[in-house]
């Protein structure tokens, strides 16, 4: 059996899932909070509304008070709940000037407002982020990380997070401008939780995206801090740290090895068992990635206890978790027979059968892969055990699935089962079982399937095992006298 890497979703028909981590975020903090965060600011009731023309004029002018007012007005426009007019603001051509404001160390309020406004522009599309970067924002924000004002360095962290989230090119541009040591320096036992959340999120974006993956030396710098953050008491911090690890494990085996070497797997497995969906998702994702690796890497995940946690996740109420857990299991089942044995010993078969029977379709599809891999790599005894666990009925029911690939895999799996049955001389019993469970009529029907490979696989099974049942029935049994007698010597098949 083959371990399958997470499928590169170059083309997607579906909506982006809500349980994915956000690539970019806009700062739309509530009014009151926002004003508290801007010390030295006028009182709320003194907000002045400016037209776009007035903003351009003031930003480009030399009056610090008007600059602040205009920048603040811009930030406010960009912070409105729905459809902020990012394009319009960019078209005003004020970004370079805003970037300049970031360096006005003597005017903290202006620095803060400009940082906020730029953060929200960078939170848009790739075009929007590019406008900010091309305005020279990367070095400016990097130096702001060391601002004496915590709220300003926090806003810089956020802005850089949006830039990093755009993709591998800007991510690596940040890494090359040496942003990592500055970011890591901000993490300390006294860092407030809110700030720490932003830092963790930005770090996770620095670990994110492939083609290429982030440079190894950067990963090596970030990982120890991420592992500390995974021990934090705040769920949001843990969650984003897990997301970061899940990105780092989503790659080639040497990338997986870097993570395995840190010894973080037991903690990830522990987090997989969390009651919090938010935490479970990325932790499971990370472990799922690890078991796409080598047999040794998979064994490391097994040793960390993943098999004890999976039964619960296979029965999870959220279909997405069921699916991810089944995918993880499918890669464990693709391992050598010793790993398959551990899967049996740890009691994974009953939840697997349940999932095949009643799970969401997405999860059922992955569960089919588990069975397919199991029957490819398992020993005859293990396959017999699988059949005893009741896998056949739900598996055969899924021959009605509206997905050609799934049907084909099931047919291949059935062939595997027959090969195992042949080895123990139980072919006939398996034939009867398949028929009893209404599998035969389904396979017969698939001989009319439009998909050529499906049709041929079905035909093959019918021809090989279900044609001429009479010959099986009548296999010449001759006694000592050389004449037909009615006895048939067979072992008992104990499905």
């Amino acid at each position, binding site marked *: 059996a083959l371990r399958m890497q997470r499928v590169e979703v170059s083309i997607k028909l*579906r*909506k982006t899932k809500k349980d994915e981590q956000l690539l970019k975020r806009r700062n739309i903090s509530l009014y009151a909070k926002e004003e508290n965060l801007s010390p030295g600011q006028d009182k709320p009731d003194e907000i002045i509304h400016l037209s776009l023309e007035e903003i351009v004029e003031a930003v480009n002018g030399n009056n610090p008070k008007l600059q602040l007012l205009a920048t603040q007005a811009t930030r406010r426009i960009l912070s409105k709940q729905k459809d902020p007019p990012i394009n319009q603001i960019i078209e005003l051509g004020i970004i370079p000037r805003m970037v300049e404001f970031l360096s006005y160390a003597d005017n903290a309020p202006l620095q803060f407002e400009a940082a906020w406004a730029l953060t929200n522009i960078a939170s848009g599309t790739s075009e929007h982020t590019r406008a900010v970067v091309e305005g020279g924002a990367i070095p400016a924000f990097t130096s702001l990380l060391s601002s004496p004002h915590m709220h300003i360095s926090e806003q810089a962290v956020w802005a850089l997070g949006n830039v990093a989230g755009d993709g591998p090119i800007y991510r690596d541009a940040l890494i090359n401008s040496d942003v990592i040591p500055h970011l890591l320096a901000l993490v300390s036992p006294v860092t407030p939780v809110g700030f720490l959340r932003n830092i963790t999120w930005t770090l996770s974006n620095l670990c994110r995206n492939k083609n290429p993956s982030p440079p190894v030396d950067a990963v090596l710098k970030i990982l120890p801090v991420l592992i500390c953050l995974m021990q934090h008491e705040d769920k949001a911090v843990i969650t984003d740290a897990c997301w970061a690890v899940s990105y780092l494990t989503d790659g080639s085996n040497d990338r997986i090895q870097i993570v395995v070497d840190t010894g973080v797997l037991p903690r990830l497995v522990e987090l997989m068992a969390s009651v919090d969906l938010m935490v479970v998702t990325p932790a499971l994702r990370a472990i799922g990635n690890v078991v796409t690796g080598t047999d040794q890497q998979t064994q490391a995940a097994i040793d960390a206890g993943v098999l004890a946690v999976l039964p619960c996740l296979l029965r999870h109420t959220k279909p997405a978790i069921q699916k991810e857990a089944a995918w993880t299991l499918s890669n464990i089942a693709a391992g050598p027979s010793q790993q398959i044995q551990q899967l049996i010993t740890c009691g994974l078969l009953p939840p697997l059968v349940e999932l095949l029977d009643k799970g*969401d379709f997405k999860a059922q599809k992955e569960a089919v892969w588990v069975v397919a891999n199991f029957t490819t790599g398992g020993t005859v005894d293990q396959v017999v055990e699988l059949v005893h666990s009741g896998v056949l009925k739900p598996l055969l029911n899924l021959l009605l699935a509206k997905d050609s690939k799934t049907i084909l895999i099931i047919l291949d799996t059935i062939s595997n089962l027959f090969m195992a049955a042949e080895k123990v001389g139980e072919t006939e019993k398996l034939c009867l079982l398949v*028929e009893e469970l*209404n599998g035969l009529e389904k396979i017969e029907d698939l001989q009319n399937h439009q998909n050529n490979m499906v049709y041929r696989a079905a035909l093959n099974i019918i021809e090989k095992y279900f044609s001429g049942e009479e010959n099986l029935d009548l*296999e010449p049994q001759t006694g000592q006298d050389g004449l037909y007698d*009615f006895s048939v010597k067979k072992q008992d098949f104990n499905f």
Partner: protein
Amino acid sequence: MELSDANLQTLTEYLKKTLDPDPAIRRPAEKFLESVEGSQNYPLLLLTLLEKSQENVIKVCASVTFKNYIKRNWRIVEDEPNKICESDRIAIKANIVPLMLSSPEQIQKQLSDAISIIGREDFPQKWPDLLTEMVNRFQSGDFHVINGVLRTAHSLFKRYRHEFKSNELWTEIKLVLDAFALPLTNLFKATIELCSTHANDASALKVLFSSLILIAKLFYSLNFQDLPEFFEDNMETWMTNFHSLLTLDNKLLQTDDEEEAGLLELLKSQICDNAALYAQKYDEEFQPYLPRFVTAIWNLLVTTGQEVKYDLLVSNAIQFLASVCERPHYKHLFEDQNTLTSICEKVIVPNMEFRAADEEAFEDNSEEYIRRDLEGSDIDTRRRAACDLVRGLCKFFEGPVTGIFSGYVNSMLQEYAKNPSVNWKHKDAAIYLVTSLASKAQTQKHGITQANELVNLTEFFVNHIQPDLKSATVNEFPVLKADGIKYIMIFRNQVPKEQLLVSVPLLINHLQAESIVVHTYAAHALERLFTMRGTNNTTLITAAEMAPFVEVLLTNLFKALTLPGSSENEYIMKAIMRSFSLLQESIIPYIPSVITQLTQKLLAVSKNPSKPHFNHYMFESICLSIRITCKANPEAVGSFEEALFLVFTEILQNDVQEFIPYVFQVMSLLLEMHKNEIPSSYMALFPHLLQPVLWERTGNIPPLVRLLQAYLERGSSTIASAAADKIPGLLGVFQKLIASKANDHQGFYLLNSIIEHMPPESVDQYRKQIFILLFQRLQNSKTTKFIKSFLVFINLYCIRYGALALQEIFDSIQPKMFGMVLEKIIIPEIQKVSGQVEKKICAVGITKILTECPPMMDTEYTKLWIPLLQALIGLFELPEDDTIPDEEHFIDIEDTPGYQTAFSQLAFAGKKEHDPVGQMVNNPRIHLAQSLHKLSTACPGRVLSMLSTSLNAEALQYLQGYLQAASVSLL
């Protein structure tokens, strides 16, 4: 070809000729068209004709010819020339869509097919503007045009329903969705609005509903691979409208036709499919809509009539409910007792009724009826769907459902009792209901294997099934008779044996029924009862229990074959075979009449063999007659030969291919029955059996080899004396077989028989040649199967001719050959030999090499003595080595096309396993010990010293065990 009027005229004439019924005119015209289709402009000429020709037949003919031309030529196959020139391709793509849309429907369909064939190759890369061109037509408001576009889109997109996910496919789908999903949705909404504005205009509605059907089909294709973002965002629009269409009715759309589904039914049926797709694949997103659909579909079922035209809709709708009610999180939708009652009463019971159409099939199309009812090819029928729904509901609600139905069964039986001749259908439905309720799992071989424990099957059998079958009139209420017999058949494992025994004479009696279904079911039921297993691997029903019925059973079975419509009834013939095999010697008194009837039948069907199963069971029955009779009276073989040979000769002379393998098998059986020298009638046939033409047919090979083996066993001395000149031909057959990887084992069967039975002097001159052939094959294409057969053969040879003779003949072919074969083949491969007799032959042969071959003791071969002994002990003690090199895995399958189908092995012509060393050696381990003992007596000390210096400890331990068991020791 230029685009000229002259060419158009020529083409018109040839097209007209292709429609001529006279092949002398039609064929040359077709040939001509084929010869010019490679010319540039040919397709454009066809397009011109189909658009502009004056004659409608020519238009249609041109469009069909065009489509077939595209089908044959459009695809560009790698390494083959492009069959359509580029400018023609461009011109076709530029013109075909508008041309299709402006053509009348008959031509539009052909062009639409052509577009989808082109689209399959060129869309989207090489035909980028196709989609926009199509979508733009949606705004035309002309539904003739719109339907053309939709139909084309459907034929382009329907492959999304069965193809595997791939980047390429999904890129295409994404492109289609981006361009098509929104316009399609708008068209859907607009069409529905038009339906209400034109609610009173029948002809407008027809067009609009055709559009809606196509739109619903497109929805299915576009949503099949995954739930597209667009459709998730617009689920409300689609599902709300689908839902209201399900509940819609309009008198203007109802059709009078009882058989053909109307537009409304087709649309609703497709909507059921769409809902089922969402329920199965996108449950999470679809959940909010599902309960509404359950209610709507259930109401739909309650209000839909019994006519055949609703069948597809009804079975689709029931299947939807069946699939939903099994899911734990929708259980609550069905839980309520009133809901359950109402589903049972209004959905299940009405759809189980025996309808006029079923009655028609029962009487006039019995074969089809039996196939559907007995063999389960009823997947799309209403009864079947209703049955599935019962099973689905029983998953959670077995108790309540059984309770509800018990009430129905009782009331239906009461209705029947009031007036059987009018109300017999009520009883039929009651039996069907009981059957579907009680059966949880079923196989052809065992009938029902798991039953609902809440149903008392035996009680129902005694009270309601047996009385019908006991009735004196076998031809009354044939449907109920068939139901009753089927009940016995499928519940045979649930009903106690004494009840089955009571049923046997009733079944025998019904073999006389005029209804084909009834007497066929009776035969089938008897056949199934006779195959039931009792304790100790005996049959449940014994021959003794059947003794009183033998005569009437045989009489009725053969009489049933004379009933109209059943002259080649495979169920009856199979029952005959099974009865013979059960009754054994008690059929002997009837054999003369039986064999006469069978040979007459054989003669009749050999004129035109059309029912393979019937024929097969007929030959099995013949074999059984022979075996049973000759077992008691070996002399009787002559009378069988007398009865059969005439027909057999005719079959062979007329080359009835289907029957020849059977004839050879029966002849083998007959020949093996002879105790004395082979009769001259067989010898006359011998030369014919060596005819190469017979050996070219794969299906003949196994039975012919078998027959030749019988000749060799019984007539080797006659062959050696009277047919010595045929020996080279016989060996030629061996050579032919040995050359094939698929048939080499058959060649060895033949060779083994030759070596075992032919007088040595008669084959002396060929022996060396035989080995050379085998060595060649070994050198050029060695396979595991060949090696296994080869090892058995050389050991058999060694047993027959002696170990020294084996060594001498090997070394006479090439010096040191014997050592090489020992070292490279025997020692490393012996573990692969499988089969008890085969292993025994090898053990005895190797023992002989070890102990009866002087060169093994005092030449350079001596160094192989211990390894050979070790290999022999391995053969005794180690598990068989069944590894097969990867590349060989497929030989048997690929190199023997149609082996299974072409060769029809008769079970009752079975050859008994032959053990050529059976008399000589009983226990090969003890034989080894004794032989070693003998050897050590001849040269004291040698054996012991070899053993103690080089045999490994484990093997030595085994060997000591053998010596102990044989009570001998080595000196």
